[in-house]
């Protein structure tokens, strides 16, 4: 028998090696399920804490705007209304701006490096912390818009939205700073969905003689619509939960007013303002408001994800 060169040796894994493998797999399994634990934990904890207020005021909490810690009467209508109005109005301004910018980035009006610079500028805007935007809004934006608001009130005061004397900090300023914060979200998601539209659709439209904007409006935007819609919904969720910049500039008043020029409230700014000093049943009422905010943003987020799943990868 001649000697064999042993390249491979048959050997079984030791028990300890097998165990390490199994332990590793199960550890990662546990870590990934922590996401679900945290998510359900948040929902559960906030619900339990709000239970006292929930059982006392029921759904009346949502439609009354009395917020009086002395008399122990709580209703979050002003805050809920403020949350919805500021987020929806800011979104209405952001959508055309953001989609317009996304079209600018994906079309070839200007050389590529200019578009890339614009794209990264918009994305860098998303990296600025919201508290810094709030600081900027207080000291730079508010003085800048003061005359414009006075003008709005003088000439359009007959519209309920502009019917009050402009206050130093008001809902309209909050809407403007929200536009700044939502712009990167809408732009980057709209840009991604526009980029995903296949080139052949554009070429086909050009081929039958459509002009550039006819192509954009009738072919490209409809094809990218679901992605853009999902981005808009994500931005809506973000706008409803946005706290710092809004808290700093909205004026924080629980007095209900139709006018955007008077101070307002959102759920998140109410939480930021009162949570630290609250006690007794006020805490429970704040948890109730937090619960409402969470449900609102959950619904919007889940709907956005459903939309993405339902309509993505059509081509």
């Amino acid at each position, binding site marked *: 028998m001649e000697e064999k060169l042993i390249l491979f040796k048959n050997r079984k*894994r030791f028990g300890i090696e097998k165990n*390490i*493998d199994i332990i*590793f*797999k199960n*550890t*990662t399994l546990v*870590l*990934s*399920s922590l*996401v679900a634990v945290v*998510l359900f934990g*948040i929902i559960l*904890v906030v619900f339990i804490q709000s239970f006292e207020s929930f059982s006392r005021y029921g759904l009346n909490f949502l439609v009354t705007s009395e917020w009086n810690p002395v008399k122990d009467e709580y209703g979050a209508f002003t805050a809920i209304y403020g949350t919805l109005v500021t987020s929806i109005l800011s979104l209405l301004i952001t959508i*055309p*701006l*953001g*989609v*317009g*910018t996304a079209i*600018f980035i994906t*079309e070839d*009006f200007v050389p590529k490096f200019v578009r890339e610079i*614009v794209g*990264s*500028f*918009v994305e*860098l*805007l998303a*990296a600025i*912390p*919201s508290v*810094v935007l*709030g*600081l*900027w809004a207080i*000291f*730079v934006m508010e003085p800048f818009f003061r005359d414009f608001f006075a003008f709005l009130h003088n000439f359009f005061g007959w519209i309920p939205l502009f019917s009050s004397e402009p206050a130093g900090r008001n809902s309209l300023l909050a809407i403007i700073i929200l536009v700044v914060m939502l*712009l990167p979200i809408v732009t980057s998601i709209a840009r991604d969905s526009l980029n995903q539209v296949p080139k052949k659709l554009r070429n086909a439209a050009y081929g039958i003689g459509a*002009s550039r*904007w*006819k192509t954009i409006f009738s072919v490209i935007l409809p094809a990218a619509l679901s992605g853009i819609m999902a981005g808009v919904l*994500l931005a809506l969720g973000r706008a409803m*939960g*946005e*706290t*710092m910049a809004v808290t*700093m500039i909205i004026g924080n008043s629980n007095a209900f007013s139709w006018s955007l020029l008077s101070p307002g409230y959102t759920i*998140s700014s109410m*939480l*930021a303002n009162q*949570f*630290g000093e609250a006690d007794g049943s006020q805490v429970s009422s*704040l948890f109730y408001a*937090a619960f409402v*905010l969470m449900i609102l943003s959950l619904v*919007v*987020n*889940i709907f956005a*994800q459903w939309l993405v799943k339902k309509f993505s990868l059509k081509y």
Partner: protein
Amino acid sequence: MNSLYYQKKLSRNVGDKFFTSLSVFCAFIAILPLIFVVTYILIKGGAQINSDLFTLEPNPPGDDLDAGGINPALIGTLIITTIASIIAIPVGVGGGIYLAEYSKGGPFSKFIRFGVNVLAGVPSIIAGVFIYALIVSTKILFGSMYSGLAGGMALSILMLPTVIKTTDEGLKLVPNELRYASLGIGASMYTTILKITLPSAFRSIATGVVLGIARAAGETAPLIFTALFSYYYIVGFEDLFYEMGSLAVLIYNFALEPYDAQNKLAWAASFILVISILSVNIFSRILAAFTEKTKRV
């Protein structure tokens, strides 16, 4: 024959011009805020930068003209973000490994991925409310109420979805051939993941994680009633269990003070925060562009 030439006054051409300029206008408006914000922070914040800023405690608002420095807040931000990273990175990377390497697209992994997206959409202030109810009000951490530790935990909830997502997506980009090769020569799953797939996805995961940390460093809402704020130097380990200042909360508190000295301090803190966050972002962007180019070759 005329119809073969470009006619300026044709309605479709006029319309095209109009919409093109509208789109350019949108892009112009969109980059204005960044330029204005960064310029003001550079001017107003940059003017306040001196060595005292980094070494002194902030003075409580009052009539004295000197506001002091931001040393405790600066250190506090570093500590709180570190705590958040220590919690969120192992959990997130581990969870991401399970999703990308072990799960087979069944209902569980679908549910977890869905949960990650939902958690990413939870308003940041809710994370603060949650930690307040769980940790601050129950005094579960050795009897301490507001603490840097609680603040770090609240931030980790916000970092978690980002870390899981980038790990999951980074690992999915690793070509399967690498896994086959490793498993084929007899390596276990555990060795394959730790020695082959994770290292080859390291750069994209690291980029995502660093961006997540930068984002967390600027978050304020989860901290205002978990870590609260403190005017005093952080001297020892036990300070983790007491109120802890952070740059973000300092900006929030001092921006709303009526005193000029405190406002200036808020601008200085913004300067430091924004410069560090933007440089991390720009650096990782350049790095990503660089890797993309080398990969294509």
